[in-house]
């Protein structure tokens, strides 16, 4: 059966060009970048070239980039590292939102147990945080504002330029989680006044297990992992050279034209779905939506069941339904934009990549019409 992968917000297919450049770093150029010999220096050179690719892509300097194991580690390192570096200074207040990824939310909850005070800001019905709410929430104790740039569930792209200006003016640090937005929305650490940026590879056709954290020059944090003083002593552990090479290649192969292509497919899919009766789009419907995100409620039927039928047709999707979570709780993001538990249960997320084709979208719409009709006939709620 034909497979159509529409769960690219979860992870993406590794680009063949990426695999190609990684390959020699497993089999021939397998040196440890800390070693003095030629093989080590070969790895070191590749590591530093990759670092400069990542740095340039967000307008940063190479020495401001730390490689990590991925988005979760980068987010944890930024928040916990900053908190512990400022222990005893009275700066113990963190401002974030109610629509963060679990790793930021749960890191914040853990930091509350360590003495942090955390403000979880509301968002509007499209998922936007109001920059003025951030300004109002800042106190003399505020250490950092941490915001998810492009939301992983509903695709909302936050006004980080405006938030960055406020943070710089108020002299608090600004961290963005850019796991979903990287290469899809503009990130410039200088123009947007960013102090920390979380990046990862596997959402952009790179390998899993690699990420990066931009830390603005001069900003002090404590490491989470102590060891051989790798990565400016902020992240010890032998660098994942093949992964890092692949990460840089994924960045180099991403094109602005990919964004345009995904936007076109996204809008076709959204418009096609909204023609089905009793459906609602979650998240914004304008240029402030991630180019690859579609999130819709199909009222009166469950997202988990829709996903199950789509899977049987070879289409991979995802849902914010309680029925598909480990905890039987529906998505905190959908609840934050005002959906009830019941409504959140009816949600379906489809997320595109540059590899999706227009005829796939036609097929998905045809299948969706069929399975939504079938499940609605099965539902007691009309």
């Amino acid at each position, binding site marked *: 059966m034909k497979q159509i992968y529409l769960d690219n917000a979860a992870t993406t297919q590794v680009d063949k060009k990426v695999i190609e450049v990684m390959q020699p770093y497993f089999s021939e150029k397998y040196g440890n970048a800390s070693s003095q010999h030629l093989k080590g220096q070969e790895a070191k050179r590749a590591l530093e070239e990759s670092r400069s690719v990542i740095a340039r892509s967000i307008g940063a300097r190479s020495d401001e980039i730390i490689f990590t194991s991925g988005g979760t580690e980068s987010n944890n390192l930024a928040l916990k590292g900053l908190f512990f570096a400022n222990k005893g200074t009275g700066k113990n207040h963190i401002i974030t939102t109610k629509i963060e990824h679990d790793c930021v939310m749960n890191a914040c909850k853990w930091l509350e147990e360590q003495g942090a005070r955390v403000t979880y800001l509301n968002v509007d019905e499209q998922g936007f945080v109001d920059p003025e709410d951030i300004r109002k929430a800042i106190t003399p104790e505020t250490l950092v504002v941490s915001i998810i740039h492009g939301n992983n569930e509903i695709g909302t792209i936050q006004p980080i330029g405006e938030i960055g200006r406020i943070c710089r003016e108020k002299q608090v640090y600004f961290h963005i989680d850019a796991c979903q937005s990287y290469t899809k929305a503009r990130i410039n650490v200088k123009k947007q006044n960013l102090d920390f940026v979380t990046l990862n590879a596997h959402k952009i056709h790179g390998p899993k297990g690699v990420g990066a954290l931009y830390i603005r020059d001069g900003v002090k944090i404590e490491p989470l992992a102590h060891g051989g003083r790798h990565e400016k002593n902020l992240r010890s552990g032998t660098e994942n050279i093949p992964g890092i090479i692949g990460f840089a290649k994924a960045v180099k192969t991403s094109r602005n034209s990919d964004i345009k292509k995904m936007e076109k497919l996204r809008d076709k899919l959204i418009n096609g779905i909204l023609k089905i009766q009793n459906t609602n789009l979650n998240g914004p419907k304008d240029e402030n939506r991630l180019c690859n995100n579609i999130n819709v409620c199909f009222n009166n039927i469950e997202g988990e069941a829709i996903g*199950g039928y789509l899977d*049987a047709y070879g289409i991979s*999707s995802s849902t914010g339904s309680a029925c*598909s979570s480990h905890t*039987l709780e529906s*998505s905190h993001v959908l609840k934050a934009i005002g959906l009830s538990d019941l409504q959140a249960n009816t949600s379906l997320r489809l997320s595109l990549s540059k590899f999706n084709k227009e005829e796939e979208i036609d097929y998905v719409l045809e299948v969706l019409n069929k399975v939504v009709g079938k499940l609605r006939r099965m539902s007691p709620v009309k």
Partner: protein
Amino acid sequence: MKNKFEQYNKQVMKHFLKPKHAGKIKNPDAVGRINNDMCGDLMEIYLKIEGGKIKDIKFQTMGCAAAIASSDVLCELVLGKSLEEAKEIDNKKIIRELGGLPLIKLHCSVLGERTLRKAIEDYESKEK
């Protein structure tokens, strides 16, 4: 946002994708309706009863794959049975018939058991 459909076995998928008993009965002798507080699932069962036996049964469920499969297998289990026999069907029998459910989905099978009891109660209260 987890995609966990791989956790369902073939039997569950069969009842989920091709349920034989989904639908409604015109002028049913009894109806049961339950709202599952745990996850918001909703189920209705319609019964046609003749001579103390379940002559026909249909379900409508707003729920996940496990809830729909459990609903369908429950109907299969009780069709043709007497009301007394039908009362004996519990969620353990449903799970056994399905060849097992993921741990977190076990509660979905309780929905069918409770809705059927409700429908039988509805019938018995009308008979009195």
